């Protein structure tokens, strides 16, 4: 009963923040709303039985990713196009489409029987680390995936650095580099 109350509170916060992302004009307001939504979702993770995941969500998602988003918005002066209308003809197209899709998937979901299993494990740190790093009898399991993910992050970082690098000799370089 208590879980349901907590869940409803957190769900309302998450949905409300998502709606705010949809309707906000300034990107920074949108980013803040997104952070709120993520924190609410982290709470829900903790409620369901994956506290580790909830903390990771706050650390990585709300912490690192959204910081990056905020940084880029500030650098590129994201409020520049605030005068443009927020919703146009395309938006009127998308609304019924998304509603239709969500409706159908929801319909299918509701008809399938779902129940909480009492033997489900709780996602503590110990369990997660054991699953990731214990090379089981039946094979390495998630270990290789973990390593590959590290590689993926590295390559994404390199790609981002390469792509966003200032070209030598461009006007931007001249304007912003210190003159010696």
């Amino acid at each position: 009963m208590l879980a349901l109350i907590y869940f409803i509170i957190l769900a309302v916060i998450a949905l409300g923040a998502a709606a705010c992302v949809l309707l906000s004009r300034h990107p920074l307001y949108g980013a803040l709303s997104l952070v709120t939504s993520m924190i609410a979702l982290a709470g829900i993770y903790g409620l369901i039985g994956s506290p580790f995941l909830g903390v990771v969500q706050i650390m990585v998602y709300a912490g690192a990713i959204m910081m990056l988003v905020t940084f880029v918005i500030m650098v590129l002066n994201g409020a520049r196009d605030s005068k443009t209308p927020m919703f146009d003809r395309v938006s009127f197209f998308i609304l019924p489409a998304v509603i239709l899709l969500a409706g159908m998937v929801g319909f299918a979901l509701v008809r399938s029987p779902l129940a909480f299993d009492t033997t489900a494990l709780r996602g503590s740190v110990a369990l997660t680390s054991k699953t990731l790093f214990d090379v089981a009898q039946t094979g390495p399991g998630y270990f290789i995936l973990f390593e590959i993910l590290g590689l993926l992050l590295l390559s994404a970082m390199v790609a981002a650095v390469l792509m966003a690098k200032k070209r030598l000799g461009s006007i931007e370089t001249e304007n912003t580099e210190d003159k010696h």
Partner: protein
Amino acid sequence: MTNIPLWLIPLFPLLGTIILGAIAVATSPNKKGAPEGVVGAIAVLLPAMSFMCVAALATGMPDAGFRTTLCNWIDIPLLKVDIGFLFDGLSRIMLLFVTGIGTLITLYSIGYMHGDRGFTRFFAYINLFLFSMIVLVLSDNLMLTFLGWEGVGLCSYLLIGFWNKDLNNCKAANKAFIVNRVGDIGFLLGMLCVVTIGGSGALNYDLLNQFIQMVIAGGHVELVLPMLSLAAILFFVGCTGKSAQIPLLTWLPDAMAGPTPVSALIHAATMVTSGVYLVARMSNLFVLCPDVLNIILVVGALTAFWAAFAGLFQNDIKKVLAYSTISQLGYMFMAAGVSAFDASIFHVFTHAFFKASLFLGAGAVIHALAGEQDMRRMGGMIKKTPVTACVMIFAFLAIVGFPGFAGFWSKDLILERIFTNCNWVFTGTYLADGAVPMNKIFYITGLFTAVITAVYMGRLIIMTFFGEYRGSKESEEHIHEAPAVMLIPMVVLTFGSIFAGYLWAESMGITFFADSLAPVLGVAQAFDPAVAFSPDMVLEEFIPRVTTHVNPMVFAALGTLAALFGMFVAWKGWGKAHIQAAAKGESSAPDGYAAKWTFMWDYVHLFFVKVVKITAWLCEVVVDTVLQAFQWMLGAVATIIGDGATVFQVRKVRLQLVFSILGVALLVLVVLLTGGMV
């Protein structure tokens, strides 16, 4: 010594090829090429070592022979072939004269090719040829023989077109290779037929013989007989290509464009006899197909006759010898056609000696005259080049079958066997009431061909060596006898052409040659359908063996008479008559009716070439156009569909995404409706 490994025999010439090839490539930028002494020494030494190995193995060889299997070559589910060698009576004889005459001709070539820029390359090719020929003869299965078969064809191409700056030489080389290739299709298909009946093990000669014995003993020959006959005829097609019989013989006269030692080695003594060797090796298969043997007999007889006649019209000394080779090969196949395989191998043996002598002698004459090959510009050479003249006259006496010389024993043996062994009785002819005895007809053909042989060979000798010299004055001063390195092989071969016949002199009681071949060929030659098959099996093709007994002296006498008559006709026709000297630039080719006769088979080839060209035109214009239209149709359909699909593309990215989402919604709907998701 019986413990010399068999694989040493082909190894020496192969080493020679590699070493000489490396030297040739390394010295190719030089102007003068590698030192001739070193190259010549290597080139002669290695075949000589092969010969010594063969000689050492030949003495004291047991009747069954030696066999080795070197390694596995092909090992796939369909086919399993090993590289193995078989040294029995038949391959011993062939190897002895292949390596022996090969060494002598290589020695001769050192003198003949002296000063030629391609000296090293020539000997590399000669060693490669000897390697291929040894592999052909020594192998114990059909696939390895085919490797040697192709190898000698390749070397023939390389050596005929040796002086490759002249386009005619290249064309001649192409012709030789391509006509041989047509024959090789027969060989390949024959191998296929053999594998179809007997499995891949039947490619091995021993296993093939066992299989055939099993077929005969099993009593159901008629089941496999069609396939066996097909295999036999296909192998014979391969032999007509390699041994220049009708219809694939047009390459041999053109092959005279190569250097004379090449003609002596390849187109007289060794390569062209590989067809006869194959027939002898597969003798067990051939005797089981009497129809094919009859075909071989007819083809051999026609070829011998036609080529002898064509030799009469030639003016080029080497072309006369080329047609003579074709004619003598016809004799060998005639012998094979009457199941006298040992007689045909004996004629191969003696023919190698006297034909090589003739070619080497002709080479010496051409060398003396600085490249002149037209007999109408020769004459009276006996005074200037006596040793060469002696060599050629002795070889001439051998080839016409003068008593005592090699050809007398072998050719008369063949004619005798044709008369006594041929049991073909041609029934149902509307000329006579009863049956026509074919043995007499073939004998008469053979005898008449022998007369013509004597005529054209006599013509050659008289036009070249006797009478007045018909060339220019300044060339007459330069005529000189060949150097010793050329004369020694010629003299050795002359001894061979005189005395080689005595290995099988039946009237004198010596049957050494036949006895050495008996373990290999005896079973096939003694094959008598009446004995081999059970009495309740009656097959129409198999006529019981009947041997007519005639005193051998009759044949000897008739042969000698034919030779003497031919020599008399030659003397009458060209001895005293004044032979017109040819003008300066006149070509040696025959003209008029002589040309029609000589180039008869070239016209047949042209017909087939035309047929192929028409087929190619049909394929290009008709089939290709149809295919292109079909391709165009497919492309048009794809383009139309693509153009239709672009209707759904919009300019705005976001709108495009909306359509994607709509598409996903549609998919979900479809899955829901068809009950995919519960």
